[in-house]
């Protein structure tokens, strides 16, 4: 229908034009730069075409293994897993009849909002102070409780630096998960539980067979969206540890920053960016294969 076609164009056009300009064009430009030796000092004149040299250097670099490990395992996998588990725990606790009965749920939901309303830059500053040694609040508490004898430099000690960074990320991002899961929990039909109780189901059985399956779609969506956000995130690691001690917490996004804006090698930084986008695209492909396909088919 001609009318529909016009309608589709008008409705879809603005979004696509904005995305084309602010995403597609810079992405294409970035792809081009990744094949050059462009530096920040020569941004005006432009770089020389060097083919795949940047990619080759990145792939063969001895650093790359650890960068991948840090980005995949520590920054992304563990932090997303902790976030989901903690978010689930918060949602379950807030949703218990006891908490509802005592009318604490609203208070809890307001409290959950606090970290979310805190911009990451602020969150990191606060946590750096809390984790500081020897006077930071956490050290003071642990010392007072007798759990440790000497203060721990949480963001400097190889044993604690990753858990600390993850703690910051989780604190700042768990509210989204907790509130979403809380909303889903409230949508679980009460008669399902009643029926199960009549059958004599234990509480853990009810959790595993009713609650969890009901939450699963939300968990999967939240988990995967969180993966995208976290994988590409540069701010947490950069401002919390500066990728240190040494290069211990360096991740792909901070490596891009160091290469592009410390070493001025824009071409090399661009190549890492392309590799990251490809990794996420592959990931995204499986994402849609696994859960998105059903959703897309139903939705579209």
């Amino acid at each position, binding site marked *: 229908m001609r009318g529909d076609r016009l309608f589709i164009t008008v409705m879809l056009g603005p979004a696509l034009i*904005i995305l*084309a300009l602010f995403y597609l064009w810079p992405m294409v430009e970035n792809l081009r730069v990744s094949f050059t030796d462009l530096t920040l*000092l020569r941004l005006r004149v432009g770089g020389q075409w060097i083919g795949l040299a940047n990619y080759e250097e990145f792939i063969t670099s001895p650093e790359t293994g650890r960068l991948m490990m840090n980005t995949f395992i520590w920054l992304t996998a563990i932090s997303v897993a902790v976030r989901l588990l903690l978010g689930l725990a918060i949602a379950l606790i807030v949703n218990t009849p006891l908490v509802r009965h005592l009318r604490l749920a609203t208070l809890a939901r307001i409290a959950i909002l606090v970290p979310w309303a805190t911009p990451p830059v602020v969150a990191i500053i606060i946590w750096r102070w809390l984790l500081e040694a020897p006077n930071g609040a956490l050290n003071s508490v642990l010392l007072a409780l007798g759990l440790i004898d000497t203060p721990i430099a949480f963001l400097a000690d190889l044993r604690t630096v990753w858990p600390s960074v993850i703690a910051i990320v989780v604190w700042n991002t768990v509210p989204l998960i907790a509130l979403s899961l809380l909303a889903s929990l409230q949508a679980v039909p009460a008669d399902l539980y009643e029926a199960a109780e009549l059958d004599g189901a234990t509480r853990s059985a009810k959790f595993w067979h009713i609650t969890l399956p009901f939450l699963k779609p939300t968990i999967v969506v939240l988990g995967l969206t969180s993966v995208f956000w976290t994988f590409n995130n540069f701010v947490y690691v950069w401002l919390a540890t500066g990728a*240190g001690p040494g*290069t211990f917490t360096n991740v792909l996004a901070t490596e891009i920053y160091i290469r592009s804006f*410390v070493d*001025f090698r824009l071409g090399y930084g661009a190549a890492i960016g392309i590799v990251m986008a490809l990794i996420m695209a592959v990931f995204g492909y499986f994402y849609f294969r696994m859960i998105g396909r059903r959703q897309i088919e139903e939705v579209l």
Partner: protein
Amino acid sequence: MIFKHLTACLGIGARGVIGALMVGAALLPGVAQAADPVTLTFRFNDPEQKEMRAALDAFEKANPGIKVNLERMAWKDARDQFLREAAVGETPDVVHIAFVWAKEMGEAGALAPLDALIKAKPPGKGLSDFIAMDLATGKNGKVYALPWTTDTWAMVYRTDLLDQAGVKTLPTTWDDLRQASRDVHAKTGKTGFGFPAGSASSGSLWFLANYNWWSNGKALIVEKDKTFSVGVDKADVVGTMNYFKSYLDNGDTPKSMLGVSDWADPVIIRGLADGTIAIGIMPPASFREAINAYTAANPGKAAPFKSGPVPKGTTVGTSHLGGRMLGISATSKHPEEAWKLVQFLNDPSIFTGAYKSQFPAQRSLLQSVDFGPELKGFAEQLTHARTWGPYAEGPYAMGSMWNLTGRAFGAALSGQTSVDAAAGDLLTQIGKLNAGR
């Protein structure tokens, strides 16, 4: 058809499409680009924004045809932001830069050569009165920036803690310093030498490592007949790493310092102010912060602080001559007015009024600065400070060396890798920088 539409959009070119797209948004407020007389933008990165604004108001009054907008960029981002802007010609007119940026920015075409302006209206008491002109001059002999302020690092001490520890004289060698730090820790339980041992890209270890090499007559980058090379060997690097590592291993510098990269980190400033750190190393502005913090907490009491030269500082000159310059952007439309502003900013009254945290880079003014008793060590050290010389002139990018050195030392000091491996890795990486440019 959507695709056709899209390709059509891209075909028109970014400028046209954005323009069309933003017709509707044009009513939204933006920055007014006032056309009346001449508007200069001055990017000033230090905290004295209010004081500087007041000075600029005076400048505007004296020069009715010129208006100056003040803006600020965090030092960490100032360098790459200006290069980015210069590439597209969207720059402030007068920029505040670090000593070591002038050459590269000039040679990259981002800063305008000042020779003609200097010749027409020489600044202050003439160019020869300005220190560090070597860093302001490009390979082609052109002057790209005017040194504005200078400082260097010096050692700072809590005299009360030194007294308690029985340290009678201020350390003059690295071994003295090592011993003093150990004594303080052993006798008072406090931190001895509280140096920032973190490995961020712009961390402090870079300075400490170089001071140490310089005092041994070495340098990371050396020049001979215009050929630049790495001037330290693995043993030198290992030696320096082990020296600083021994503080952490012995505990007179707490391991928590590995998480502190910034010389002005509150951990250090507070430590000095509340007497949990006895010895520090920093620029004068940070030392003043510590003194101020002490005075605020202990009103009426004399601050128990002293500054002194860095180890071997006055014999072989082992601190860096740091400072800021003023440059005029190559794409400034008003270089003459900008030069007028630069000259105004070099007036003696600026350094006694709006901008007191730094010392003037003019020899004649520097002599008359009243450093006060606490900053005596800085005054002494300043006359012996050395410029980066070959570091800035050679093919090795300063920012990259700074980053690599911080990373390697951080790796060694934190135990991420062995000292040996970290030292070897550092030299390999620095070596690659020469090939890379």
